[in-house]
């Protein structure tokens, strides 16, 4: 083998490797390193050991942000995935299915920033679609600054996310549904299985790989949730709706605690990696099973 042939595979890999090295590996390593430092940008970084990582477990706000992030994961899991599955089954095979698919998928094409502004206007008091409707129906006593109510604004924002991204999950489920061989369904029907029984015992198990993929994708995206709660309320009021990603942004770029912000970033990455690893392990036999 000529020397050029020996090195050529590495040369072909080089562009991708360099891209990953400079855009991911080096910044990630630097972030881990900064997590051990105290740095306010204007003075040189100074070593603080593990104090930033210890602070992760002592800071009450971080616990609140973690709980909010878990709400996001649970909310998008229950509604963003389950509702998408129900709707996918409902629109699959019906004549007007294409219309519904388009309607549900359209919000996905918007940027989360625009979706955030849209939903801000919906819930606003100036005048705001929800409040205007309440007034029209004579329900003036319920008119309020919805997003300023810390006890409900996280749920409202999760609703906004579901509105925007459920369409993507729906399309993925439709792909899964359409890949199920019709023979399985027909055989079940011949054996006397009703629609519910067919769905539970045939469709759902065969959809499992795609379901796992949708859940993993949704969860990993939700752990990093930033754009919608930032655009709509800046994690407020009084920090009650902050997610981990917003707390990281605030500490790093508003309060200039770059060391602590980096420690939070590492914490978020660790959660994301853990979820990804877990789901990749679960997915592997499913995908292998499909191939087999």
């Amino acid at each position, binding site marked *: 083998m000529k020397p050029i042939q020996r090195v050529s595979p590495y040369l072909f890999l080089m562009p991708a490797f360099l891209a990953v090295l400079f855009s991911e590996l080096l910044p990630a390593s630097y972030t881990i390193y900064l997590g051990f430092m105290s740095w306010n940008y*204007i003075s040189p970084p100074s070593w603080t050991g593990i104090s930033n990582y210890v602070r992760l477990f002592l800071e009450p706000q971080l616990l609140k942000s973690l709980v909010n992030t878990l709400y996001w994961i649970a909310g998008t899991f229950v509604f963003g995935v389950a509702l998408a599955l129900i709707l996918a089954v409902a629109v699959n095979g019906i004549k007007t299915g294409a219309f519904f698919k388009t309607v549900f998928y359209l919000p996905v094409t918007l940027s989360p920033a625009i979706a955030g502004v849209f939903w801000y206007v919906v819930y606003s008091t100036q005048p705001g679609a929800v409040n205007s409707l309440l007034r029209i129906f004579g329900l003036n006593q319920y008119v309020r600054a919805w*997003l300023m109510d810390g006890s409900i604004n996280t749920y409202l924002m999760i609703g906004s996310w579901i509105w925007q991204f459920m369409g993507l999950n729906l399309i993925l489920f439709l792909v899964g549904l359409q890949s199920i061989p019709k023979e399985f369904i027909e055989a079940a029907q011949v054996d006397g299985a009703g629609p519910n029984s067919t769905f539970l015992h045939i469709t759902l198990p065969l959809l499992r790989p795609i379901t796992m993929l949708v859940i993993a994708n949704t969860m990993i995206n939700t752990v990093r949730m930033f754009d919608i709660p930032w655009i709509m309320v800046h994690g407020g009021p009084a920090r009650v709706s902050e997610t981990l990603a917003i707390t990281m942004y605030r500490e790093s770029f508003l309060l200039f605690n770059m060391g602590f912000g980096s420690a939070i970033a590492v914490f978020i990455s660790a959660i994301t990696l853990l979820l990804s690893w877990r789901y990749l392990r679960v997915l592997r036999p499913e995908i292998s099973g499909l191939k087999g």
Partner: protein
Amino acid sequence: MPKRLLVVIMTIAVVLASASVMAAGVRTFTFYHDNPEWQDNWTKIGEVSAQEIGIKMEPVPYDTEVYKTRIKTDLPTSRAPALFKWWFAYRAKELVDAGLVEDLSEVWDAAGDNVAAGLRQALSFGDFAYGAVFLSDYWVWYYSVPLFEKYGLKPPQTWDEFMDQLAFFKSQGISGIGNTIGKSRWTSFIVFQEILYRIDAGFYNDLMAGRAHWTDKTVVRAMEIWKEMLDKGYFAPMDARYVEDFPGMFKRGELAYAPFGDWYSSILMGGGLKPGKDFDICILPAITEKGQGAIITEVSPLIVGKNSPDKDLAKEWIEWWFSSPKAAEARWDLLHPVPWDKLTPKEVVGKSNPEFVTIMKLTENYPNKLIRFWEATPVEIVEHAVDQFEQMLIRPSTYKQILDSMEKKATEVWPKYGVKY
């Protein structure tokens, strides 16, 4: 024909040659700021200085969200901006302490008495003058003229009268005070500041300087007054935004008052409101005698980055900014600040914007100038306070916990500034 063509070609050549000579003679430096809405005006001011002294200031706008980060990351390096807009007092102290900004004492010396007295002191730490003046503002209360005319009201003369007005507005379904947190957390300190110094201006200064405590009875009293106002529903919905929503609310008579620096006039005017017709300003009465004669001031400085290769150019430019009548003319024509120099003719100001004449007259009766809360006390305390005050706005009953939390923060922060708290 060939002769004419020759003349045209020669003329073009001469113009191009002189332009290139001129361009070669013009030195440039960059100016960072966080007011993209003023970018064109700053560009024009840069052109005026290029023509007059051969130094062109090239403005670079940033969104406020990223601005502080950009400045802080660049200042320690050779990418440091030659000139940048910043905040004064404690907000500038960390930059001064880190040795990242130039001393502008010589520039101030050269300016002589062109600039209003007291501003040099406001932009200095000891003998170190860290900034030149960009804006000098007073904090006043804006009110809706259509609303006051409709109900035959006038700005209140006593605090009790103010409370009666708020109760009246509430009974009419009108929001009394526009102080909300919409998307701007920083605004949460405003009403606290406005109440506290009206109770005791000296105490306000003491609290800001770490000589008084957040649990002292004067602060508790301020919080109780604020709580009562919140409990009675005198405030606009908390999600209303002061830039996007308040101007319309003023115009429609849905909002009575909004406390802001006098820079808010340009926001209201940008929303299509006319001074005197749609809005006007007043200074609310003191709550006790100890609050009389006091007013909040805010100074926006222009600062020179010490590590910038163009810092000397920026200093030369500031000398021009302070002393040239053309600079004053351009400043007034393009930026409309409350005049802080002796070069801007008062009659021109009065014709163009009567609000500023009113402000200048009103403030003559308020000799006790206090620094705005945002800059008056260490940044760590302010940042903690604005989050706590947000909580006050949505859960007023927690005011004692808020003060305990503030006291804890102040106890932790002041020793870092060499203050025995």
